[in-house]
């Protein structure tokens, strides 16, 4: 808290972590909605039409919260990070503007039609509305990740006359290798969230014995996509991401692993508490040589620890960085195990009858959110103490005219408002889940936003 940027950093961290809870589900659900709408349209399969109708409402709620919590993100570059905006605005402003103009207009133009357009549009037009939303949301993710990748691994820039950055090569900037890898890793993680949520809702209905046909559908798709995505998050995308960090942010990698000393036979710490003052891991349970093997291909390979770097280049919060990374990796591994078991039971035809598994799938719902949040904390803390890696420090980026007191004031405002927003979101989504998919949909006029008063949630 001695850091004048402390409240600014905490506000940005809080608002971005909160914001990202919502887009990750819309990005994860969007491909499923496209597939389902395709089957509903081409195969005239009413089960899929029902599924799209149900999940479109959840999607719409997520989208709205994503919009209203997303606007503060863009504006905070100017309000709280004026130094950074001056320094790098000529570059990152481009992708933020592209996100608005190219991706977000597309997504938001069609999201209303996705949710409410079924009775106004032909099947074909409704399908293309779903595609528009999906393309928009996935493009949106790309532009944001290019912006972040520039902060992690700046490319395509030149230093202008007054020391600020200018865009020298737009294609190098847009096709930053870090951005490509980050995009694959992040989007497969969003698919994990989408698949786990779909499976959890299916498990919820299966455990209650309601909406059996829809429950079977959600469990089927949720576990199938969930396994593929959970595998892809770890390998190849997670592996590529780790190699990217090793190549360009070696100090971050050492801190993520809690590795203080350089040397051969580097271990992977499964559990343990970093003790930065003593430069060791307390109560460590380790796999010797594993990190050397992953990083170099040999158990005896030399891996650099934090002692290989000057302390001014160490990440500023090594403890949290270490925990965030380990939580992400630990959860990611357990996702693979859970989804492998679920797919085995599905293959044996016992997915809907194995109640312990259904409970596990339902209770797994929050964990993909925790894993993605931990992943982003790893990315952003690993970048410290830099705002633009190797070029510009975080302490230089803050708005000098905004006192910490003002930043704390607005942080408290966001905390209160976002608490209220979260309660409302959970209430509305919970209500939709209790009402459940509307299976006997007559085609016109029944899909009102408000449920008629006489329709009691029938679960």
């Amino acid at each position, binding site marked *: 808290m001695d850091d004048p940027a402390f409240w600014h950093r905490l506000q940005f961290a809080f608002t971005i972590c909160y914001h990202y809870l919502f887009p990750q589900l819309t990005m994860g659900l969007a491909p499923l909605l496209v597939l389902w709408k395709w089957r509903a349209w081409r195969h005239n399969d009413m089960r899929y039409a029902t599924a799209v109708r149900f999940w479109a409402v959840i999607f719409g709620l997520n989208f709205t919260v994503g*919009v209203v919590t997303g606007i503060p993100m863009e504006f905070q*570059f100017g309000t709280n990070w004026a130094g950074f905006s*001056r320094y790098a605005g000529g570059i990152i402003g*481009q992708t933020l503007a592209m996100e608005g103009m190219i991706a977000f207009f597309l997504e938001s*133009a069609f999201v209303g039609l996705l949710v409410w*357009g079924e009775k106004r549009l032909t099947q074909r037009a409704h399908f293309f509305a779903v595609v528009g939303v999906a393309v928009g949301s996935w493009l949106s993710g790309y532009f944001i990740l290019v912006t972040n990748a520039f902060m992690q691994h700046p490319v395509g820039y030149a230093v*202008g006359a007054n020391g600020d950055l200018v865009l020298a090569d737009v294609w190098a900037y847009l096709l930053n290798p870090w951005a490509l890898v980050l995009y694959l890793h992040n989007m497969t993680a969003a698919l994990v969230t989408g698949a786990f949520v779909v499976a959890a809702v299916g498990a919820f209905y299966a455990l209650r014995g309601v909406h059996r046909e829809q429950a079977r559908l959600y469990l089927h798709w949720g576990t199938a996509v969930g396994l593929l995505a959970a595998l892809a998050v770890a390998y190849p995308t997670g592996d590529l991401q780790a190699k990217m960090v090793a190549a360009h942010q070696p100090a971050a990698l050492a801190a993520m692993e809690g590795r203080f000393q350089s040397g051969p036979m580097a271990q992977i710490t499964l559990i343990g508490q970093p003790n930065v003052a003593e430069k060791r891991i307390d109560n460590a349970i380790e796999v010797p040589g594993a990190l050397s093997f992953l990083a170099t291909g040999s158990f005896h390979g030399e891996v650099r620890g934090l002692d290989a770097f000057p302390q001014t280049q160490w990440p500023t919060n090594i403890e949290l960085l270490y925990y965030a990374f380990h939580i992400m990796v630990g959860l990611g591994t357990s996702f693979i195990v859970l989804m492998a078991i679920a797919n085995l039971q599905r293959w044996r035809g016992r997915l809907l009858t194995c109640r312990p598994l259904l409970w596990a799938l339902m209770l797994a719902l929050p964990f993909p959110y925790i894993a993605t949040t931990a992943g982003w904390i790893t990315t952003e803390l690993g970048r410290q103490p830099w705002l633009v890696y190797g070029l510009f420090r975080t302490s230089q980026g803050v708005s000098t005219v905004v006192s910490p007191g003002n930043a704390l004031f607005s942080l408290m405002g966001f905390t209160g408002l976002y608490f209220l927003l979260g309660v409302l979101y959970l209430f509305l989504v919970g209500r939709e889940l209790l009402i459940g998919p509307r299976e006997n949909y007559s085609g016109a006029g029944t899909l009102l936003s408000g449920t008629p008063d006489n329709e009691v949630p029938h679960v």
Partner: protein
Amino acid sequence: MCEIWFAIVCFMLTVFALLDGWNIGAGIVHHAVGRDDAQRRLIIAALGPYWSWHEVWLIGFGGVLFAAFPIALAVALSGFYLAVMMLLWALILRGMALEISGHLTDPMWRSFWDGVFTFGSVLLALLIGIGLGNVVRGVPLATSGGTFWMPLFTDFSPRGHVGLLDWFTVLTGVFTVAALGAHGAAYIALKTTGAVHARAAQVARRMWLLTACLLVAVSIATSVLRPSLFAHMLTNPVGWFGLAVILSGGVTLVRGLLVVREQATFIGGCALIAGLFICGGAGTYPEMLHSTIDSTASLTAPQASINASLGIALVWWSVSLIFVVAYFIYIMRTYAGKVHAADEHG
């Protein structure tokens, strides 16, 4: 290049003011027009499920401002810190109210969120108006290329070391509430039938009359405070064009109100608002942030931009605008016509 981007930034802001303006305006007159729950549901239905598409214009405006004039964004948003935060909170509150009113059935909470919708909309219009008033009046920039920090209020005088609020910016805030309210009422009249339609038309008439009076007051106040703005505007052909738009919009509006043609009223109102932005932009250019302390310290558009990046941006911006216009036409066609009670959506 700077002129083009200045025009683009103004364009984005104007479209936001027109499109989201009618949602905000509908919120301002929500209780004045919708006397009971059924009528208020019809107003929300008239806004359609695409209100968030209109709000995205604010994100588009912010993004384009960031790309073209990052230094203006940095100086202005950090200087207006508390006002921007309140604006963001008002946006969140209003978005929540709009979304939730489509999902709730309980009459008590529905009336509560209708109240939040009106409150958030009025607050939003007031803050937008105060913000625009601050841009017209100027901010306390002390040195060229420097930054400023402004308290919320000082002595309410619009000269020297000013605060966010003074008699001038409060006046522009009130004017904006009236203008957007009138715009929103005209939109509701256009989209509805029956009792809501009749009352919306009546409210639009009264609000436009109020807006006209306030416009005269704002114009006089501006000419007293910054006489150079008008002189500057008249040396610029764009300024004359803006005046022509205001004039023709005003005539269309008055004719629409007199012979009760809701299309004419609505389009005239749109032209009037757009014309004000064009005139404002023509009058201030090249200044983006005028200094109330030392006019040589004002931040100009060329100082605020990073020129090397603007050429390529013009290419993709133009292409993406074509798509955006296509979406706009598609949405307007899909949801054309009056809404009825059965068309309710959140």
